[in-house]
């Protein structure tokens, strides 16, 4: 509860900070301070030192894992603000409002990590989505940004409709807004003796959640929106918002494996493979790094879906690690990308010569995204695959996944090639030393988690 309340309040604080401080960079620092505050509040609850206790009438259910996930998102946001804060300032005039919206989104994140029942899920998702529609459209003069905002909004509200229909059907079947209680499972291999309405509702809900986490074939908004949105906000959308969607998704469906029967796995594998296929294959041809990253985020979603596919302890741990690894790497690479004058691959040519630190950290981030050992991304992918194997899932789908992972190496490496092996004068905007320090910190964090993932998992989580 701490995080929900504090983030909402801090959002209001940020709203008003715009009135009192005209200097934009002060606002950034305030935001960073507020984030630290939020982190503190969340950690207080994590270590059970001080918790705001409110009777939620069973609408929210707090568990250690969710709170830990909050910590991850808050830290990621903090890093994001520290790295890209300057670029948020440059996006438009309403800087304080942007930060306020970010805090509201974090409020939505906190709700989604603790929802109990479909009502809070719905509200959480909307609280997270509506500010995003706005953030997407903040570059008002830019037609791409406008277009992205409208597309995102239209498709987002459409998916909300689908989701609500799903919720309604579930309600019709079970009489309440909890899921998965009225379904009676029967012998393996046959269709469970479930309420038809409820199953249909679950499928609709599933589709809507797929939309939110941009799983194929509901992913179409992702490349366009990520591409059109101002890069700073793409970074935020692609990381914190996305992994939260996953967390909610898995929280929602974690017990559905047995209940929905074997057919469920087929649908899920279909979605996973389609996601991996679309994300990885399409990314190969992209010339714009930003758009490539958009597709790569779809591909990463495919991997995260394995957590849903396996749905066991390992996959929950894995999704935490995956979130951390993915957020770090993506925030890092976007922070570099934002500094580039040219977002195309050729724009990165020779970056290693002009900006060795940037190139090195970008390489670490890309390697982490590609899942190469000794980076955090490896263990993230590792957990996902391991959870499927451990759950006795199909080995075939794991093999397909690793083959696509190899494809992903192809496009990630192209950026590294451009930076290190190609001739060119990559142009960047002004790079401050503190920015470099921040990047190196991110890179070290990635490598540290890559070498000793148990530090993250055991020390904080258990």
């Amino acid at each position: 509860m701490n995080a929900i309340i504090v983030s909402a309040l801090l959002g209001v604080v940020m709203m008003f900070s715009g009135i009192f401080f005209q200097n934009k960079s002060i606002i950034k620092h305030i935001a960073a301070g507020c984030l630290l505050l939020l982190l503190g509040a969340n950690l207080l609850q994590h270590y059970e030192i001080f918790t705001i206790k409110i009777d939620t009438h069973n609408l929210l259910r707090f568990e250690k894992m969710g709170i830990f996930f909050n910590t991850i998102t808050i830290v990621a946001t903090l890093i994001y603000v520290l790295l890209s804060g300057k670029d948020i300032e440059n996006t438009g005039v309403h800087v304080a409002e942007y930060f306020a919206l970010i805090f509201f989104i974090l409020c939505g994140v906190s709700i989604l990590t603790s929802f109990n029942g479909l009502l809070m899920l719905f509200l959480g998702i909307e609280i997270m989505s509506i500010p995003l529609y706005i953030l997407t459209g903040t570059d008002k003069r830019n037609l791409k940004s406008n277009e992205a905002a409208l597309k995102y909004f239209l498709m987002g509200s459409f998916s909300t409709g689908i989701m609500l229909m799903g919720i309604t059907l579930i309600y019709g079947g079970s009489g309440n807004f909890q899921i998965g209680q009225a379904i009676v499972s029967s012998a393996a291999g046959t269709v469970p003796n479930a309420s038809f309405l409820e199953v249909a509702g679950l499928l609709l809900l599933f589709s809507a959640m797929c939309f939110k986490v941009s799983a194929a074939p509901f992913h179409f908004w992702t490349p366009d929106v990520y591409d059109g949105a101002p890069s700073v906000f793409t970074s935020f959308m692609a990381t914190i918002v996305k992994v939260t969607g996953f967390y909610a998704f898995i929280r929602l469906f974690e017990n559905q494996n047995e209940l929905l029967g074997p057919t469920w796995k087929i649908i899920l594998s279909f979605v996973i493979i389609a996601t991996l296929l679309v994300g990885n294959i399409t990314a190969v041809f992209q010339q714009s790094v930003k758009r490539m990253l958009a597709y790569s985020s779809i591909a990463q979603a495919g991997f995260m879906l394995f957590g849903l596919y396996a749905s066991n302890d390992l996959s929950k741990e894995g999704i935490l690690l995956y979130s951390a690894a993915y957020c770090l790497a993506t925030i890092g690479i976007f922070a570099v990308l934002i500094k580039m004058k040219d977002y195309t691959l050729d724009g990165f040519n020779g970056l290693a010569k002009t900006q060795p630190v940037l190139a090195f950290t970008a390489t670490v981030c890309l390697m982490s995204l590609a899942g190469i050992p000794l980076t955090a991304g490896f263990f993230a992918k590792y957990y996902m695959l391991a959870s499927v194997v451990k759950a006795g899932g199909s080995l075939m789908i794991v093999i397909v996944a690793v083959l696509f992972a190899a494809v992903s190496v192809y496009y990630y490496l192209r950026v590294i090639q451009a930076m290190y092996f190609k001739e060119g004068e990559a142009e960047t905007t002004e790079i401050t030393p503190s920015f470099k320090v921040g990047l190196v910190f991110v890179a070290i964090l990635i490598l540290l988690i890559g070498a000793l993932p148990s530090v993250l998992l055991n020390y904080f989580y258990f």
Partner: protein
Amino acid sequence: MSKLVYLIPLFPLLGFLINGLGRKHLSKSMIGIIGTGSILASFIVSVLVFFDVKATGTSTVVTLFNFIQVKGLLIPFAFQVDQLSVIFLLIITGIGTLIHLYSTAYMHTEEPAHFGRYFAYLNLFIFSMLLLVLGANYVIMFIGWEGVGLCSYLLIGYWFKNNNYNYAAKKAFVMNRIGDLGFLLAVFWLIFKLGTATYSDVFLHVDKLSAFDITAITTLLFVGAMGKSAQIPLYTWLPDAMAGPTPVSALIHAATMVTAGIYMIARTNLLYSMAPGTQTLIAIIGLATAIFAATIALKQNDIKKVLAYSTVSQLGYMFLGLGVGAYTGAVFHVMTHAFFKALLFLGAGSVIHAMHHEQDITKMGGLKKFMPITHITFLLACLAIAGIPPFSGFFSKDEILMAAYAKNPIYYYVGLGGALMTAFYMFRLYTLTFLGGFRGTQAQASHVHESPIAMTFPLIVLAILSVIGGLIGIPEVFAKDAHSLGNFLTPIFAQSAALATEHHLEASQEYLFMGVSTLLIAGIIFYTISSYKKYQSTETENTGLAKLLENKWYIDELYDAIIVKPLNAIAVFFKNIIEKNIIDGGVNGVGKLVSYSSRQIRLLQSGQVGNYVLIMVLAIVVFILIWFNDLTLSYYLNRLFKNA
């Protein structure tokens, strides 16, 4: 004394090392002394060992260390000294010494570094050859076996600036390798069945081998012998090997290395005696080679080529001997052949030396008066090889032919035909070279001279040996137990002798054959000398059979067409088509497929919200359909993703 046998290969090895490493720093005379001296030392030790063996009559195995020892296989680095190896030791070191001596003079025009290289190679060759004959198991023999092949390669390509020589060297090595593969397979077979490659163990446990095993092993070993001893179909390298310096031809390609096959089969005589099928094969191939090579030799004009084909032919006789079970005869012929063929080559070398590297006999003639010693020794050698009694060749060849008759009279008649051809081409060679008028250029005429003492001394020694060498193998018909070589070797061949059914010819029949063959050969010799004495070189081209013979039956061309060219074609096909297009193309194809599908799938991202929503709706419909109906699609998907 036999315990010191390791000294025998050690000296040449030291010689090789000193000459090889110090070739830039040593003077030529020093190199010559070291090279020749090391072999001489070996020879002396060999002689001592010989008398030791002769006295005790036992075979000794000296193990130096364990070469390879793994579970189930022990291959010691061991030497075996017995009657057979001692004979070969004497031949190798003895003739080796003479040829080293000869080389110091023959090669005197070389630069010191190359001179050193030459002697290093020669020493290395002697070392390898000694390993070959001394080894107490097939693996050590194989070490020497390949080692001599290597030295042959190095020496044929000694003048490495000439690419033709290099090709010849390569050809020799590769053809030897083909044979070596057979040898190796045979060794593997032995190890597989018996778990050992040591002679004594193999012969002790020979009863564990099935008849098929024995036939296969012996055949494969014989393939090895084919390569090394230049038998059909692997003989073509030997004539080409004449690219090397002439002493090398004398040592390697006449006296020693090419007889390794005979040594090996003689060593393995027990197995061969147990495999009559292989014996027949050997006899037929040997005989065919003898005749075939003799026909080619009839029409060759290069002095060394004639001798090369003659060597091939003589080797064929030796294999005939092995094939009919006359192991002693074969070894005997190895020995006599070593004497007279080395002599012939050295004589030829002397001639070539005198003629300033002219090798075409049609451009020689009348050298008798310029080079008396060479002439006399050469004539003696020719008589020996032609088989005129009492020269050495007569006894050894006769022994083989008699044994062949005992086995199958056809062998004898064909073999005799070969012997007649031998007489013809040898005396054609002799006549064209030494008799008649000088047909060379004026410049050559002014320079023709007898060779220095270092060259003529070996000639004289070998000539003596060629003349009297046969006396150690006087046939039984002349005197009981006169065949001292046979007696000496008895322990080696005792087991096969026990297997073979002895059927000697009647003494009268034997006399008859000897007489007739001697008369025929003498007739041929007279005919040849008289017809070629007045020879004048004509420019007319040979036709018909003569042309066929002059071009060696076009065997090289045939091999080129049926083996080399197809192999090259396949290699090119593999390289340019399979590798580039299919295998690498397949790999790249996957990459291309990915980028192609990338471009196609990308088009789905049309930018149209309507299309996006359409696909989403359809996906939902499909999901519901999959869940609620056991559609064919879902059935297959189910099968596909069933748990492993």
